[in-house]
């Protein structure tokens, strides 16, 4: 296995799928000559031509709708949102159409569509570029929602997304495009709805997805220095959600902290806490706690921004709290 960046893994998955299947094509703003504002599609125009790498007008609802129309006819469009924040403009197309066409056609039509782009913050782009939209899109039946964090998962889940006959919301950790990891060569798929145990431990379960998985791993290192063995669960997929892996871990550790970058209320972490109390209540030795972003629109200044996201310290502190080891 070669070491590759998150960005390279993403491009590799799309390239391989485009080589394998002629119906796969890319649509988005600045994805052609420019190679994407995050350079995810760099070089793909030269490889596949402008019929399959389509620079669109600045028109999120327009090109998302067009992709739905293509998908209904059997093409497999992969749409780049320059950032997921711009998808609010296309939300009706995504939620009211892509997610419902199959149902409203009584199963006659499918929409094999992938919409991908950077999600969340951490790179000083302020609140209108910083939303974490996993609970927003995760709320709607008809959509599949994934948020991989390792380059290997990025490749495997992108291939799975392109091959899936449903609309997939592919939430990339934008702040991690340059991070590296081992990536399997060639055919590598990661199924949806299967969480990954990122680190094994027996004392407390830390549940996260996307960028916060790395935060939890660092927090687990710190806890380990004091002899606390934290298990880190990377959800990978938000809808469908792998409840079983979370429950299994909590049955072992009896304690859980759920970490998310998005705001506290109505988030994925609340969902995790609810599932744990429903399905592992008798195993719990402490209340499930949440670590979330601060309840403000994300600010621009680095120091202010850092204040608003979950920190390693917070995770360590809350993990100690559920272990009744507060200092």
């Amino acid at each position: 296995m070669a070491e590759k960046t998150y960005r390279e893994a993403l491009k590799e998955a799309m390239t391989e799928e485009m080589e394998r299947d002629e119906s796969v094509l890319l649509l988005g703003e600045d994805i052609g000559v420019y190679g994407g504002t995050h350079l995810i599609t760099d070089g793909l125009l030269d490889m596949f031509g402008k019929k399959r790498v389509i620079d669109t007008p600045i028109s999120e609802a327009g090109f998302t709708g067009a992709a739905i129309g293509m998908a209904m006819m059997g093409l497999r469009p992969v749409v780049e949102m320059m950032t997921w924040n711009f998808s609010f403009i296309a939300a009706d197309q995504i939620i009211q159409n892509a997610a419902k066409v199959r149902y409203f056609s009584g199963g006659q039509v499918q929409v094999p569509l992938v919409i991908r782009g950077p999600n969340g913050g951490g790179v000083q782009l302020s609140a209108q570029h910083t939303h974490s939209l996993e609970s927003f899109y995760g709320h709607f039946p008809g959509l599949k929602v994934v948020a991989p964090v390792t380059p290997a998962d990025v490749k495997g889940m992108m291939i799975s997304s392109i091959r899936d006959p449903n609309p997939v919301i592919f939430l990339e950790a934008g702040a991690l495009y340059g991070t590296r990891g081992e990536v399997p060569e060639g055919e590598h798929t990661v199924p949806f709805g299967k969480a990954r145990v990122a680190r094994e431990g027996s004392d407390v379960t830390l549940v996260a997805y996307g960028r916060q998985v790395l935060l939890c791993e660092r927090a687990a290192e710190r806890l380990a220095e004091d002899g606390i063995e934290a298990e880190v669960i990377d959800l990978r997929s938000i809808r469908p959600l792998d409840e079983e892996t979370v429950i299994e871990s909590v049955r072992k550790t009896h304690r859980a902290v759920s970490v998310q970058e998005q705001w506290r209320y109505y988030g994925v972490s609340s969902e995790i806490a609810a599932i744990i109390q429903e399905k592992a209540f008798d195993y719990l030795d402490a209340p499930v706690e949440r670590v979330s972003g601060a309840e403000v629109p994300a600010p621009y200044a680095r120091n202010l921004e850092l204040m608003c996201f979950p920190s390693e310290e917070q995770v360590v502190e809350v993990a100690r709290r559920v272990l009744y080891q507060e200092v």
Partner: protein
Amino acid sequence: MAIRETQRRHEALGLDEDDLLRMYRHMLLARRVDERMWILNRQGKAAFVISCQGQEAAQVGAAYNLRPGYDYVYPYYRDAGIVITLGMTARDQLLSLLARAEDPNSGGRQMPGHFSSRELNIVTASAPIGVQYPQAVGSAMAFKMRGEDGVVLACGGEASTSEGDWHEAMNFAGIHDLPVIFLIQNNVYAISVPENLQVAGRIVDRAAGYGFPGVEVDGNDVLAVYKVAKEAFERARRGEGPTLIEAKTYRMTAHSSDDDDRRYREREEVEEWRKKDPILRFKQYLHGAGVLDDAKEREIEEEIRAEVDEATEYAENAPYADPESAMRYVYAEEE
């Protein structure tokens, strides 16, 4: 003299008497099914009706150019005339109205008027208006990418042109010279809001802004609509790009069974337009052209009544879907 002129109109369009009678039947069937739906609604048997009445000429005239199952159509919720022209039946409409299991559009999952047929390439419509246009443009792009000569007919009312999606779609279609026809049925009202508060300038003029032709047509004259649509379809098939058609017409009923149009428009105005009823006009043309006489007219009327009666009875006796089936078709199976 008058007769010879009218004869020349349809002959010049390459339509024979069978075509004319077929178009007339489609229009009349759409109307009679619609009227029956209102009765069923007032009897408390149907939750919701949305009407095509007054727009049958615009719909049938345009749709008569479609190749069923090859071209694509994105109808809006008034387009019963379009889907009937493509081959949907009175039974299909009534099964949908009464939300029975056998409803071919959605199996009772979507409201009436939101037509869907994989076989006929009829794409299910969205309730928020205007969002079908970008999708239609995407389908047109798929035709172009595959090198096929399919055409996409995308329909809506005048109010849908106020939505950003319409403009985004027009722009995209113009950039890529796509085989798509935007058929705007300007029926003067968007629920209660009249055209003068909905549309700045003229809809048809907007096509020029996107670099393709716009044509205005009398939407209550089925042959006039057929003619401009035919030219638009031919243009699209030749790879010359999109056309905007604005068909001027009038919504003869309230917006839907849930509103009372006496709150926002005068009865006199509605009565004036009833005199311009597209079915009445086409009937007069057919009489003038010698295609229809009183006996033939009655015969067709009787046939359609029998068809609507049979469809009503069938739909009323058809079973509802098993409640458990509500959970089906959210996701496609993995391939």
